[in-house]
């Protein structure tokens, strides 16, 4: 990262240096005169409590700078600025649009490493304040992402249910299946529905398939959520699922997470952070 590529940084540093140098130069010049010069001039007639005043002319450098700045100010305010058609909102919109175009073309086909790097960067700034730097959820303040998303998390979801993303079907009740059956359904899901597998219990897949009806009632035969009635869990365990969470936000059993669809993250960034989050539980 190059600090000085940013003109605001650059101008600020120049400004800071100018403050010190100009003050040191001008004050230094006059302080030197205390050593070398002599005060002279014609005194005014008045005298206040023993204080006199010389009728000396203005220091020329000062007078010229003052006049110059006044002329500049009048010009800038009446001509330089208005004729330039500057607008703050306009500048913002232009800069954002230009940036986004550049971003999209630069990262149009990101490879794995790019996605992971980008995802980590997004995570540390946007997500870590609630989920923790390691994603552990900071003692239950938010979802522990190191155990969220894999096969075992499906078993857990079946046990505790799910709510808070505002789907028409509302809540998914807790304890739909006993733990053994839940394990089987989870195995079926990762092998056949989300294909995020391979399952840790491949021998349970067929049992799970038989039990899938419990779930398909709400999530549909294919797990795609019956056209938005419930979440599409055919991509559970994949970045796409997280992109969906980020777009909707969630106010569930743990707490509330805002949605991120206000433009602060691009689609590529959402996908990348999804990828990174998935890697936390692997």
């Amino acid at each position, binding site marked *: *990262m190059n*600090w000085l590529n940013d*003109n*605001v*940084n650059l*101008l*600020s*540093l120049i*400004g*800071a240096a*100018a*403050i010190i140098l*100009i*003050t040191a130069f*001008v*004050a230094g010049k*006059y*302080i030197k*005169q*205390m050593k070398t*010069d*002599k*005060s002279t*001039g014609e*005194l005014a007639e*008045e005298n*206040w*409590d*023993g*204080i*006199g*005043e*010389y*009728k*000396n*002319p*203005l*220091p020329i450098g*000062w007078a010229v*700078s*003052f006049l110059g*700045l006044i002329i500049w100010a009048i010009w*800038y*305010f009446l001509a330089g*600025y208005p004729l330039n058609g*500057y*607008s*703050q909102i306009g500048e913002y919109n232009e800069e954002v649009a230009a*940036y986004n175009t550049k*971003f999209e073309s630069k990262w149009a086909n990101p490879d794995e490493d*790019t996605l992971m*790097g*980008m995802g980590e*960067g*997004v995570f*540390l*700034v946007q997500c870590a*304040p609630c989920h923790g730097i390691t994603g552990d959820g900071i003692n239950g303040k938010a979802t522990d992402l190191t155990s969220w998303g894999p096969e075992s998390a499906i078993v857990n979801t079946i046990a505790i249910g799910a709510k808070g993303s505002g789907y028409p079907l509302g809540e998914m009740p807790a304890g739909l299946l006993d733990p053994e059956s839940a394990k089987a359904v989870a195995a079926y899901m990762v092998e056949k529905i989300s294909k995020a597998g391979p399952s840790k219990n491949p021998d349970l897949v067929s049992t799970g398939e038989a039990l899938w009806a419990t779930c398909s009632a709400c999530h549909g035969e294919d797990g795609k959520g019956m056209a938005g009635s419930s979440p599409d869990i055919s991509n559970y365990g994949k970045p796409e699922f997280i992109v969906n969470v980020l777009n909707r936000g969630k106010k569930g059993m743990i707490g509330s997470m805002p949605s991120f669809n206000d433009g602060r993250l691009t689609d590529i*960034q959402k996908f*990348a952070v999804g990828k990174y989050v998935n890697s936390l539980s692997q």
Partner: protein
Amino acid sequence: MQSSNMINYDYSVAKCFAIATIVFGIVGMAIGVLIAFQMAYPELNYLAGEYSTFGRLRPLHTDAVIFGFILSGVWSTWYYIGQRVLKVSMAESPFLMFMGKLHFWLYIVGVAVVVVTLFMGITTSKEYAEFEWPIDIVIVLIWVIWGMGIFGLIGIRREKTLYISIWYFIATFLGVAMLYLFNNMAVPTYFVAGLGKWYHSVSMYAGTNDAMVQWWYGHNAVAFVFTVPIIAMVYYFLPKESGQPVFSYKLSLLSFWGLMFVYLWAGGHHLLYSTVPDWVQTMGSIFSVVLILPSWGSAINMLLTMKGEWGQLKSNPLIKFMILASTFYMFSTIEGPIQAIKSVNALAHFTDWIPGHVHDGTLGWVGFMIIASLLHMAPRMFKREIYSKKLLEAQFWIQTTGIVLYFSSMWIAGITQGMMWRAADQYGNLAYSFIDTVNVLHPYYTIRGVGGLLYLVGFFMFSYNFYKTMTASKAIEEEPQSASPMAA
């Protein structure tokens, strides 16, 4: 015309305000040091329950130093300088004497109420204008009484021409009166809508308008409390203490009117990149930049007054304080305008560079000028020499070190912070979260606390020196014409 030596000036009000200056200075700065350390060590927030939290103490610090320490200093010097350059004693008018004392005591009552209400957390939440409407009314009354005092004294003056310092005192009076009235217009909610307690209010302006009025006020509080009356001091005390005539009448005149005209338009620079109209922001930036020159004019006039007087600068610590103060005045009045340039402000806004800037001015310029002024007045008010020159020299260096630590740490902290907030990684993500900046800034907050502590220690040395001068120092027969007498 009577010679000034024959007039028996009455300093009783000046003395009262001098003591108030010292007391409020200690309180305000001590709270300042505490909240500075709170930024570095947050546990310090819990020393005394809700009463010691940063949120409660921060307005107490700012209001105590601005409206306690500085205003008392301004009034103390007014009640001293006013009589002398107008060549008239307050004792000549029982009315003015009464108004002066009323001014002081009403002010003390006002301060007491302010302290209690701010500790209780009762505020309007407007920065530097936290006082609720009943207190505002008392403040207006105090101000009017001061104004009557000024114009009353001017009315009975013997010196026909008004000295520069008097222009600046008048400007202080008028400027603050106008700003304070407009910014504190408020609707008392209880009486209008039955909401809140009887003393609660909301601003009469809404949203962006409120912000604009607030910063028109806030910025000009800097102008008419930190700048204008302090220039009144330097124009009197530096020539008086050094015995040197002021370098140039023309420069005084142009700087004065330049300052008056330009300052009032610069407040918009507090609201850059906000919802305030673009042209208001641009105007704020432009006028801020122009402001460098009238500000520097007064400082240069003072530095040039000391032309050829290097010897005095070396031997007289009061001159040292005043020359360094003028230099810090130059430093902070070019710093502000540069921070008001939009592109620089994009980095500087909301960072520690801003409090750094404020304290260059307040510690270096305002604080030093008030200290030097009171010490110049002390031998003349109490007819005793200054108690210890050695102590004063030591104080000078300790406080100067304090200021340097303060502003250098805040410059580094602020610029670092601004850069970190802007920084992005190669994918365009923000590179740092807020806590990353806090970690980096922590050492600088500690250094700032130490800087403030040094300044406070110096202020204690000054208070002791002043107290001793008042009570125990060697008496002097005759008032010195210029340099103040001091014991080694």
